[in-house]
């Protein structure tokens, strides 16, 4: 803030009259007779004030002070003499004398005649803040993925000479004219990047530029940096929470698994223990899509929710779009989880080894040739092996320890300075098994679940140099899931094997300074072979009243079927700034034709040919978002859009589902605001409303039609608001944390005529507060507090005895009209990092639920339903581990 002191002139009212007239001498004459006293008939009036310069020597410590002077004013009004009577120091004295000697007065009058007078004058020096007329501008340039400061980058802003970032990547400008200014960043042999900043007079703008770097040219002798231009995110999502991998790893409860941070983001409901489900804004878990790059994967977390399916050391960042997202994504009524992977290292080989209570993993990345680099990681869980050492496996009735492993590998070929081709693959395997043998046939239970998937992709990226980018990523994959079990003598078997082919192609560019553009094509084909044997109610669907331990019905059927889902979605978005750079309007359109094919229109019958069925649907999905930077600190956002979701292949059975199911529809509305309270404290809030229709639900008709076990009459709605207070700057390794709170209500009904009832995953309140702090010396500590409303459940209001199966059956109250009690958990984490040259060893310990609270996870009933109690989750989960990087 520039300050300029000015002098204020205060003429104090000390005017003393000293008869400055010469004395009159009489000659030998006798003393004259006493004459009448002279009278000041008019005081002197200052007509020409001269402002004194504030002494330079005093500007370093500006203060208010006064100099009292005696001024002799002649009969013509000129200052004949000035003397200091009360000093304020030689500097102020000299300045005041210099000024008053140039004063001009109307002369005083004595007896109506101009006459010389002397006055006492107080010259007061004050400090005044003038309205600023310039701005300050500073910031830091860092590498996007790692946050490493970038030194030696040229930064220029209109109206000023360029500067170069220092060792910390920092730069600064002062006394810049306010307004919108073009900022350029470049380096020798670099591609220049430009952006615009809004400067306000009297304010300091502090920014952070995160740039994606190209690998350093090993042959270069200098420290030249190559900055890969990533065209500014054309359509910054109206609602988005993005966290870097380094930050996410420090949060308690994640056990160093970066992607577990999603559970702590606003808008995400707390999943029940062992589920790993991601419930966003009242959407069912299967409605939220997860992408690794452009490749869709069937789940974010392994069974049990202990680990993500992507190795943490390969993750660059994770972004959650809970809703209201742009036209680039679809096929889901819930949110989107975007996982961005790190670039393979090209400077040298890097190895990460991890070992903890849950699993062991390794990752290696490095250069193969000058233009080729690779990244490979693998992990295997051993918690199941560990727990098997215990003789007590009673916990398996509720929380089955999963067995899992996963891996990924990528090879990148650099085609040019801003162009590369990357071949990648990943795989994941999960298995959960439990068995409860019993001499009582009705008590026997066994349950085995498996899910495996593989993906292979080829990604091409090119930055054209003018800020435009091209990305093309075709991929193929395979998913296999199976569930077999026996519950109370009823066997259940479900299998699905899917082959997937997908492609995403995108081009983004600036049409003009006011218009940015994104066009793309999103294609996906899924062919699934499914088999199912068992009851209608296993697996359960949303809306089925859930009673823990209740055996399924004994009426069974079987079916095998194949299905195909084709969808090809061209999409486009514009980023328009019709009223200046502060206001963005982002219209988008996604037009998605669907072809749904099911093998059989009706259940297979001997002597009847199987007739397949094809359903064609075109989903026109307009999207609109707006973003208005009301001030440098405050931004308003809003979005509205139409969304579609195809039916699950498992629902296209003519026996258990409905081959004629089409896409479900939804509309999402969001409105939000974010405010930068200080440079390291920000606040954001978003209100949301979602409405969905044509959801697949069980047919409530007591005599349903053939091949209509499911009907598409369900509806849903969610209303809520989320708040997030984030502290800690991106550039600092010290403290960071956030407080997130979501208030919402989610409802469903089976048809437009039915009553609304709570959604199975409704959670009215979800509160998360987390903090991590680097103490120094390699020590890092963190804590996380979570509180959430319990999930709805259907109460048991009575029971009747089933003599056929020799067990009691519950009589149920209104669907989802009661709740599991609220959840509360406090986690702590501590870590110590040891650094030895190029080697880093981190040892960490984490305790989940450090207060040992018995959080109810499920309602349990006695055999006759006369008594009720709660199954509590893991009372405590200590995890110790180590990570070695070299």
């Amino acid at each position, binding site marked *: 803030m520039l300050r300029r002191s000015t002098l204020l002139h205060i003429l104090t009212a000390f005017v003393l009259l000293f008869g400055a007239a010469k004395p009159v001498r009489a000659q030998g004459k006798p003393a004259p007779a006493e004459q009448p006293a002279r009278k000041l008939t008019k005081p002197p009036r200052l007509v020409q004030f001269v402002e004194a310069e504030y002494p330079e020597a005093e500007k370093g410590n500006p203060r208010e002070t006064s100099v009292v002077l005696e001024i002799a004013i002649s009969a013509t009004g000129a200052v004949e003499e000035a003397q200091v009577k009360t000093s304020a120091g030689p500097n102020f004295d000299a300045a005041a004398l210099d000024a008053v000697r140039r004063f001009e007065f109307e002369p005083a009058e004595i007896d109506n005649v101009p006459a010389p007078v002397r006055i006492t004058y107080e010259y007061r020096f004050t400090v005044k803040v003038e309205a600023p007329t310039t701005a300050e501008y500073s910031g830091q340039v860092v590498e996007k993925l790692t946050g490493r400061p970038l030194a030696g980058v040229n930064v220029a802003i209109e109206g000023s000479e360029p500067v170069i970032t220092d060792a910390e990547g920092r730069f600064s400008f002062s006394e810049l004219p306010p307004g919108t200014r073009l900022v350029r960043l470049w380096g020798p042999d670099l591609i220049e990047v430009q952006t615009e900043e809004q400067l306000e007079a009297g304010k300091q703008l502090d920014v952070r530029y995160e740039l994606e770097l190209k690998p350093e040219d090993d042959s270069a002798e200098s420290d030249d940096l190559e900055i890969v231009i990533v065209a500014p995110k054309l359509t910054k999502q109206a609602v988005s929470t993005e966290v870097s991998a380094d930050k996410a790893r420090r949060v308690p409860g994640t056990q160093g698994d970066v992607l577990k941070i999603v559970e702590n983001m606003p808008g995400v409901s707390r999943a029940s223990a062992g589920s790993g489900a991601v419930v966003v804004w009242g959407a069912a878990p299967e409605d939220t899509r997860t992408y690794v790059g452009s490749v869709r994967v069937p789940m974010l977390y392994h069974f049990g929710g202990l680990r993500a399916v992507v190795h943490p050391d390969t993750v660059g960042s994770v972004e959650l779009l809970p809703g209201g997202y742009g036209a680039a994504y679809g096929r889901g009524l819930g949110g989107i989880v975007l996982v961005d992977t790190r670039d393979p290292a090209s400077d040298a080989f890097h190895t990460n080894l991890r070992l903890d209570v849950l699993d062991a993993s390794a990752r290696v990345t490095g250069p193969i040739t000058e233009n080729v680099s690779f990244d490979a990681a693998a992990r295997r869980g051993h918690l199941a092996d560990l727990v098997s050492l215990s003789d007590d496996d009673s916990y398996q009735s509720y929380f089955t320890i999963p067995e899992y492993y996963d891996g990924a590998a990528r090879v990148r070929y650099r085609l040019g300075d801003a162009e590369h081709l990357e071949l990648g693959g990943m795989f994941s395997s999960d298995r959960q098994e439990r068995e409860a043998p019993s001499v009582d046939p009705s008590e026997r239970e066994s349950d085995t679940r498996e899910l495996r998937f593989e993906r292979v992709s080829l990604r091409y990226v090119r930055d054209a140099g003018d800020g435009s980018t091209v990305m093309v990523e075709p991929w193929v994959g395979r998913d296999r899931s199976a569930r077999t079990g026996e519950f109370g003598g009823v066997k259940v078997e479900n299998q699905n094997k899917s082959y997937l082919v997908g492609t995403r192609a995108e081009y983004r560019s600036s049409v003009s300074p006011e218009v940015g553009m994104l066009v793309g094509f999103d294609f996906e084909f899924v062919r699934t072979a499914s088999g199912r044997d068992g009851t209608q109610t296993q697996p359960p669907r949303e809306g089925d009243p859930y009673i823990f331990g209740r055996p399924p019905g004994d009426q069974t059927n079987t079916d095998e079927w194949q299905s195909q889902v084709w969808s090809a979605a061209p999409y486009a978005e514009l980023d328009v700034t019709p009223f200046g750079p502060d206001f963005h309007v982002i219209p988008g359109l996604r037009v998605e034709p669907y072809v749904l094919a099911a093998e059989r229109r009706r259940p297979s019958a001997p002597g009847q040919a199987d007739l397949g069925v094809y359903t064609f649907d075109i989903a026109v999905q307009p999207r609109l978002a707006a973003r208005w930077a009301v001030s440098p600190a405050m931004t308003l956002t809003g979005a509205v859009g139409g969304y579609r979701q195809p039916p699950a292949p498992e629902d296209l059975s003519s026996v258990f589902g409905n081959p004629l199911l089409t896409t479900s529809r939804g509309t999402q509305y969001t409105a939000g605001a974010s405010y930068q309270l200080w440079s390291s404290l920000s606040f954001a809030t978003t209100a949301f409303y979602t409405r969905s229709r044509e959801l697949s639900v069980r047919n409530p008709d007591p005599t*349903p039609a053939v091949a209509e076990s499911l009907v598409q009459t369900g509806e849903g709605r969610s209303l809520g608001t989320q708040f997030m207070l984030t502290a800690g700057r991106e550039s600092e390794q010290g403290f960071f944390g956030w407080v997130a709170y979501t208030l919402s209500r989610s409802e469903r009904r089976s048809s437009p005529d039915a009553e609304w009832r709570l959604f199975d995953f409704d959670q009215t309140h979800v509160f998360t507060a987390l903090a991590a702090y680097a103490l120094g010396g390699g020590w890092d500590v963190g804590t996380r507090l979570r509180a959430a409303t319990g999930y709805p459940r259907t109460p048991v209001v009575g029971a009747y005895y089933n003599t056929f199966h020799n067990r009691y059956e519950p009589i149920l109250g209104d669907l989802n009209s009661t709740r599991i009690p609220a959840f509360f958990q406090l986690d702590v984490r501590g870590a110590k990092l040891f650094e030895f040259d190029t080697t880093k060893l981190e040892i960490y310990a984490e305790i989940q639920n450090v207060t040992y609270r018995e959080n109810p996870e499920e309602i349990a009933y006695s055999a006759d339903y006369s008594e009720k109690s709660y199954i509590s989750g893991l009372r405590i989960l200590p995890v110790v581990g180590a990570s070695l990087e070299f």
Partner: protein
Amino acid sequence: MKRLPPSPRTLLASLAGVLSTSACIPEFDEDASLVAEPRILAVRAEPAESEENESVELAALIAIPEGGATFAPAWAFCSAPKPLTELGPVAQPCIEDFGNESPVLNDLGSGASIDAVVPDGACRVFGPIPPDATSGDASARPVDPDDTGGFYQPVLAGISRDDDTPAFGRVRLSCGLTGLAPDEAIKYRLGYRRNENPMIEKLVARVGEERIVLEEGQSFTLAPGSQVTFEVSWSDCPREPRCGDQVCSPGEERAECPDDCSEPRGCTGAETYAVFDRDAREVVLQREGISVAWYSDVGGFSVPENGVAASDPETTGETNTWTAPTSERDSRVWVVVRDERGGVGFRSVIANVRAP
């Protein structure tokens, strides 16, 4: 003596124990075999499998603890089809309306046993014949069978007409199977035999060295706090068809085995019957498993229920140990045997607990 440090395995096991005991499953103080108040333990239909419009005798095993009053239960057939959204065995309105006038209940009268007629159209409402569709001209979805290929008419029996929680039972329907290929349909017709209720051939109480064969209502004596081992057995049904064994087994026809099949007779044990294997899409022969449920009004059984799986055709009985109360009294014991196809047999005896 210096204590050795725990081995790695011990440490790991300790940690595993911490984890494994962390998820707390509550235990309820309950005994499924204890009869604390008058209740219906079983419902038997004779014959065990009936066609539409066929007469059937329904009998209830009513357990009355000592001092309790006997009663004559009210009976009703449920006529409401069960929607797919109903996770229980019967349409909820039938349970809720029991004891009151209701369009979904067919009143059958009251009594420990009654005679009833299987409703006309039961195979359409509860069986494989597609019911009348309610949605336009689309054909309706037939009911799914259970793993034995069975369809059932729901029946409710309550202690009093005003009782809100009746006992639920089933009458197995002889509806045949639809949707089979012609050759499989023939195999099924030739191979399927109606269910026969299992019968307790012998119930023995072993008190010390003494073996006491107990008939219906018979009593025996044992000391307070002592244990008795009950042995229940049932008929050893033929595992292969054999003319002259007095059982019309699958594969036997009247022409070849007139003694066995002139009046088709089943076996009162674990029968062999034909069932359509949906995976293999062919008719196969399957043997019943038998479950045994044990009840008493005082004392306690080792297990409330056990039985013999279908994979164990050689075993034709089961045992259980009952611990007598520590005070002198007359204790009632009920034993119920059930086969997989809904057949029921039961016997009740009295244990006189007396100090020697």
